[in-house]
C-alpha cells in the first residue's frame, strides 16, 4: 500500500466509486490530495454505470448504457485518469467504522485492514426499494436493479419472457434495456397512473433532457408492441405446478383481475439509500418526506452532522446519477475548504444551484411514480415480508396487536423481522409500511432500524481487524 501523501494533514477516504465517489476523488486530486477510494465492486462505476468484468467480451458503451453512454463513458474515463493518483481499493467491503477508522474486508484475498481517515466522503449509493407481492420468493423474481445488473455486468437476461412490475423511472428504463437487448418483454405493469405522470409533467420539464428520455422509453416500448399497463395493483407472482419457478403474474387493473404468462419478473419501487455507514458514524437522521425515508442530514454542500464526514449521492437521498456527480464534487470542495484549502467558490455555488434545481424535478418524479401508499392495506397476511427469517405480514400485524409494538426496533425484537443476513436492508421498507398501517401512524412515526456492525455479514475468522500498517490518520 502507498504511504499517506507527503505531509498533507488531509487523508480523506471516499467510500463508494459510483458517480459521486469518482467526482469527489477527481476534485480532491485536482487539489493535490491523494484520497483512498474504497469500492465494494471490482471496477469503479457504481451501479448505474456498472462495468462488466474485464474478462467478459467487450460490449460497447452504447449497448450497455444506451442514452447514458456518454455520461457513463465520462465517469469511467475520469476514473481511469485518476487511477494512478488515488489509492484505489476495489472488492473491499467497509463493514464497520469507529474512532476515525474504517474496518475493511478485501474479498479476493480474504484479508482485513483498518483504514484511518482524517475526513470521509460517504457515497454508498442505493438498492431497490422492495414492496413484496405474494410469490416474490419464487426463483425467477428479481429486483429491477438486479435485473439490470444481470444485463450490464453478466451479459445475460433474467428470463426469456419477462414482466416488469412496480413503479419508478427504472421500470421503463430496464424494460427498454431488456427489449433492446433482445429479450421478450411480456408487459410493463406500473402501479402509478398515466394521470400521475401527466400531472407531474410541468415539474419534470425542469430537466427536459431526462424527461425526454423517459418519454422516449415509453414510446419505444409502445412502438415495439410491449403492453404497458398503468394504475395496476400487483396481486401475485404465479408459480409453475411445482412452485419451483415463475410461471406468470396476476394483477388488478381497477376493474378486474388479469393474468399473464412469463418466466421471470423484475420488480421494484424506485430506490432506497444505503445509510448504514452514515448511521455507524453517528450522523443525525431525519425523516425526509420526499424520499419517504429516514436519511442522514446534510447541508447544501454535503456536510453531515458529524465533523469531517460528508455525504454525497444516492446514499443520502435518491437524486439520481447526475446529481450524484455534482454532489460528489461539491462534498469534496467542502472537505477541502473545511481543511483550509482554497477552492473555486463560484464552481461550488453553481453545483449547489444545480442540485437545488433538481429538487423540483425530484418532486415531479415522486408525483409521477408515487409509491403505492395503500400497499400495506392490500398486503395479505401470508405475504412473506422478511425472506431471511420468513416473517409474514400477518406475523407483523399479530405482533402489533398482541404486544403493542409501535416502533421498528421493537417490532424487530419481538418478531425477528430484519434479523437475518440483510439486517433489514431489504425488508425494512416494507416492514415499516406494514407497521405504520397496522398502528394507524404515518410512516415517519415508526422510526428506523438502528444500524449495527457489520454492515454486511463477515466471516467470523475475518472479524479480527489486522493491525494497521498505515500511519494513523488522526
Amino acid at each position, binding site marked *: 500500500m502507498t504511504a499517506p501523501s507527503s505531509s498533507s494533514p488531509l487523508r480523506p477516504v471516499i467510500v463508494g466509486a459510483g458517480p459521486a465517489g469518482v467526482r469527489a476523488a477527481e476534485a480532491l486530486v485536482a487539489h493535490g490530495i491523494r484520497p483512498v477510494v474504497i469500492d465494494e465492486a471490482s471496477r469503479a462505476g457504481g451501479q448505474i454505470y456498472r462495468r462488466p468484468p474485464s474478462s467478459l467480451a467487450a460490449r460497447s458503451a452504447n449497448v450497455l448504457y444506451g442514452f447514458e453512454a456518454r455520461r457513463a463513458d465520462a465517469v469511467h474515463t475520469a476514473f481511469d485518469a485518476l487511477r494512478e493518483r488515488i489509492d484505489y481499493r476495489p472488492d473491499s467491503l467497509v463493514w464497520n467504522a469507529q474512532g476515525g477508522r474504517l474496518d475493511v474486508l478485501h474479498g479476493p484475498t480474504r484479508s482485513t485492514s483498518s483504514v484511518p481517515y482524517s475526513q470521509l466522503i460517504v457515497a454508498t449509493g442505493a438498492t431497490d426499494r422492495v414492496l413484496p407481492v405474494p410469490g416474490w420468493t419464487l426463483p425467477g423474481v428479481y429486483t429491477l436493479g438486479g435485473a439490470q445488473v444481470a444485463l450490464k455486468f453478466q451479459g445475460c437476461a433474467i428470463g426469456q419472457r419477462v414482466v416488469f412490475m412496480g413503479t419508478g423511472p427504472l421500470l421503463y428504463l430496464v424494460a427498454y434495456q431488456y427489449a433492446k437487448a433482445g429479450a421478450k418483454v411480456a408487459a410493463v405493469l406500473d402501479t402509478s397512473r398515466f394521470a400521475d405522470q401527466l400531472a407531474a409533467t410541468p415539474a419534470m420539464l425542469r430537466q427536459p433532457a431526462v424527461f425526454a428520455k423517459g418519454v422516449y422509453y415509453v414510446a419505444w416500448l409502445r412502438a415495439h408492441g410491449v403492453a404497458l399497463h398503468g394504475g395496476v395493483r400487483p396481486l401475485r407472482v404465479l408459480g409453475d405446478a411445482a412452485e419451483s419457478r415463475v410461471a406468470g403474474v396476476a394483477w388488478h387493473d381497477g376493474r378486474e383481475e388479469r393474468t399473464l404468462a412469463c418466466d421471470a419478473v423484475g420488480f421494484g419501487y424506485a430506490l432506497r439509500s444505503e445509510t448504514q455507514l452514515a448511521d455507524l458514524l453517528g450522523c443525525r437522521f431525519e425523516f425526509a418526506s420526499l424520499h419517504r425515508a429516514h436519511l442522514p442530514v446534510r447541508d447544501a454542500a454535503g456536510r453531515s452532522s458529524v465533523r469531517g464526514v460528508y455525504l454525497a449521492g444516492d446514499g443520502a437521498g435518491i437524486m439520481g446519477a447526475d446529481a450524484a456527480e455534482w454532489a460528489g464534487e461539491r462534498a469534496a470542495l467542502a472537505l477541502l475548504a473545511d481543511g483550509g484549502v482554497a477552492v473555486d467558490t463560484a464552481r461550488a455555488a453553481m453545483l449547489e444551484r444545480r442540485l437545488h434545481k433538481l429538487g423540483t424535478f425530484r418532486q415531479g418524479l415522486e408525483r409521477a411514480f408515487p409509491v403505492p401508499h395503500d400497499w400495506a392495506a392490500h398486503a395479505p397476511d401470508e405475504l412473506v415480508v422478511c425472506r431471511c427469517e420468513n416473517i409474514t405480514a400477518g406475523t407483523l400485524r399479530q405482533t402489533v396487536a398482541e404486544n403493542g409494538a409501535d416502533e421498528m426496533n421493537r417490532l424487530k425484537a419481538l418478531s425477528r423481522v430484519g434479523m437475518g443476513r440483510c439486517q433489514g436492508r431489504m425488508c425494512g421498507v416494507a416492514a415499516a409500511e406494514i407497521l405504520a398501517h397496522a398502528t394507524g401512524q404515518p410512516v415517519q412515526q415508526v422510526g428506523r432500524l438502528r444500524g449495527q456492525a457489520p454492515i454486511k455479514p463477515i466471516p*467470523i475468522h475475518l472479524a479480527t481487524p489486522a493491525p494497521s500498517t498505515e500511519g494513523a490518520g488522526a
Partner: protein
Amino acid sequence: MTGRKTLRTDVAVVGGGIVGASAALALRKMGIGVVLLERDLCGSRSSGVNYGGVRRQGRPVSQLPLAQRAHRIWGNLRETIGTDGEYLRSGHFKIARSEADMASLEQYRTKSRDFDLGLELISAARLRERCPWLGTRAVGGSLCAEDGQANPRLVSPAFALAAQRAGAQIFERHKVDEVAHDGKGFLLRSGNALEVRAPALLNCAGAWSGPIAEYFGEAVPLRSSHPVMAVTEPVPHFMDWSLGVEGGGIYCRQVARGNLVLGGGRGIALDADRARADRDAIATLAAQAVELLPTLRHAHFIRTWSGTEGNLPDHQPVLGPSRTTPGLFHGFGFSGAGFQIGPAAGEVLAELVRDGRSSTPIESFSIERFFAAAATAEDAAADKTPTPTSP
C-alpha cells in the same frame, strides 16, 4: 401545568426492565396497586439485549437462594407471563481450559453443595466423546443440566405485558425527571405529562438508578457497563448447551433458529443512553469463538450490539430497603448477571413492600455495605476521598 395527569397508587416503580416489571407483576398478584414508569420501552435496555443466559452455576453462593427462587419462576414461565420466551433448560456448561480451572470448578461444586444445582464434572476424555465440536483448549468442565437459556428480547417485555394485563399501569417513554418525598409519600414527575403519588417506591432503573438513590442520601458507586454481543447467521444445529468459560471471557449458545449468540468483552457508550460493540472487543470475541468452536470459523457474524447495565464494584446487586427513607426499596446494580435472578428479585421487592421482609435471604445485597465500607475506609485513612458516584 395543564394536562398533567396525577395518579395515586400504592407503589410507584421506576424502570421497566425485568426487575421492575417482575415486581409490578408480583405486586398485582398481591392485589397491590402499581404504576410503573419506563424512560424508553420496557425491556429495551440491559434486560432485553443481554446474552440470555439463565444460569445459576458460577454465581456467588450468596446469590444462590435468590437464583433457586428464580429457577422455580422460570420453570413456570409460560403460566407466569404467557409465553415461553424460548426458555430452554438446555444445560449450562462451564468450560475449564486448564487443570487449575478444573480445580476451581470442583471447589465451586463443593461450595454450592447445599443448593441442589446438580453439578456434574466432565473430564477431557468424556468431553471429546460427547462434544466433538469443542475446540482442543477445553480440558473438561462442569455441567448444570437444569440451567439454560432464553430469549431476553421476548422475555423481558413479556413480564411488563403480563404486569399490565394483571392491572399495573405502565407508562413507556416516560422518563422520571423529578422524585421527592413530602413526608407522607413519594412524588414522581415525568415532564408535564404525569405525576405519580405513592407511599412506596421501587428503584429498579438499572444503570439509571444512581440519581434516585443519591437523592435519598444513598450515593453508591454505580457505573454503566456495556457488554458486547454478536450473533451469527443460522448454522446447522450442533450444540444444546449454553457455554461459559471458567474465568470468563466468552459465552455462547445456539438458538432454535440455528444462530449462535455470543458475548464477551466491553462495548463503548455513545451517550448516556446508547452503546455499541467495540471493534477490539469484536475481534477478541471472534478469536475466542473460533478457538472454542472451530466449526464457527466460516460462519458469518450478521450483527453485533451492546446495551447499558448498572455495575457495582463487588458485582453484587443492591436489593432491599433504603437505609434512609421508609417505603423506598432498591433493586438495581445487577452487574451483568440480572437476567436469571431478575424475576426473583421482583418477587422479593413485592414482599418487602407488603411484609417489610423477604422470605429469601438478601442481607448480602444491602445498600449498607457501601456505607459501612466507606466508614471503615475513612477511619483507616482520613485523607482518602470517598468514591464519587456516577451520574
